[in-house]
C-alpha cells in the first residue's frame, strides 16, 4: 500500500482475519497458542469491555489502581483569617521543610492546640 499512511495502515491491518466472519481475530488468543507476546487487536466493543473492567474511582470517574489504597476523603473548606506576619513566615518555612502544605500545618497545629485545651 502506498501513500503517507501506507505503513500505519498495513501495520493496523496485519491482524489475522477470521475467514468465516472476515473480521480480525484477537491476537492475544494466537499469542497464547504460539507462546509469543503480540499486541492485541480489538474493536470498539472490546475497547468498551476494557473500560468496564477497569476499577473506577466514583468521585473522579477515572480508573483507580488496584494496588493503591483508597485514601479517606477529607472534606476541606476554604477559610481565611489573620495571622501575625512572622508566624506566617515560620509557617511557610515549617511547611516547606516538612513537605507539607501550609493548610496542613495549620490543620495539625490547630487540632493539637484544641486537643490540649480539652485535656487541660
Amino acid at each position: 500500500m502506498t501513500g503517507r499512511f501506507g505503513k500505519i495502515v498495513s501495520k493496523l491491518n496485519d491482524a489475522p482475519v477470521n475467514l468465516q466472519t472476515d473480521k480480525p481475530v484477537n491476537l492475544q488468543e494466537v499469542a497464547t497458542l504460539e507462546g509469543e507476546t503480540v499486541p492485541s487487536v480489538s474493536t470498539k466493543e472490546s475497547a468498551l469491555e476494557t473500560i468496564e473492567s477497569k476499577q473506577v474511582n466514583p468521585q473522579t470517574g477515572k480508573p483507580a489502581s488496584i494496588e493503591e489504597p483508597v485514601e479517606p476523603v477529607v472534606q476541606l473548606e476554604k477559610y481565611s483569617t489573620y495571622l501575625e506576619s512572622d508566624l506566617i513566615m515560620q509557617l511557610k518555612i515549617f511547611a516547606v521543610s516538612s513537605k507539607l502544605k501550609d493548610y496542613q500545618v495549620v490543620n495539625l497545629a490547630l487540632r493539637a492546640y484544641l486537643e490540649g485545651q480539652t485535656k487541660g
Partner: protein
Amino acid sequence: MYKIAIVNEKGGVGKTTSAVSLATLLNARGSCVLVDADPNHSALDWVQAGAGMGFDAFSLEAFDQLEQFEYTFMVLDTKAGEAVKDLVVLAQSFDLLIIPSKPDPLSLRVLIQTLQPLQEAHATNFKVLLTDVPPAPSTDGHEARMALQDSGIPMFAQSIRRAAAFSKAALNGTAVNEVKGDSRAKLAHMDYDLVVREILA
C-alpha cells in the same frame, strides 16, 4: 483497538486541539496512543511542553518503527491538505474519522471539499465536529449546524465552544481543564468529554 483519525483539508480548525483533548479523555477510559502525522508536530509539541499528559505520543515516522504496541484507543492527528487518496485510505482503515470545522463560511466551504471524496468513496464512518463556536449572541454555531444537518452531513450533537484556554493549555503542555484562572477551561474540557461519550455510545 478503536482507531480515530482527525482530518480536515483546512488548517486552524482545531484538529490538534481535538486530537490532544480526545486522547486525554480516552486515556482515562483505556490506554490511548496519539500519533502525530503533521510534519509540524504540533500535537507532539503540545504533549512535550509540560510534564507529560499520561498517554503515549509518537510521530507517524516513529510509530511506523514500533514493532509491538498494545492500546485500547488510537488517535491520529493529520496535517491540513492531506491527499484525497490518503483520506479515503484512512476512512477504510480507521473506525471513525472526525472532521473538526469552525462554523464560519470559509471553513464550511473547505469542509464540503473534504467530505466530497469520502462521500464518493461511500464512506459512512465520519462525523463533523463544530469547533471554536463563539458564545451568544453569535448564532454562527447554530446556523452552521442547521445548514450541515439540512445537507444530511453526519455531525456530533456536541459542539466545542471557543475558549482561550486551549492556547494556554498547548503552551503549558496540559489538558485544557488544568488551565488555572479561566472559567471556560473546564466547560471546554466538558465539551470534549461529551464528544467522547458520543463516540463510545
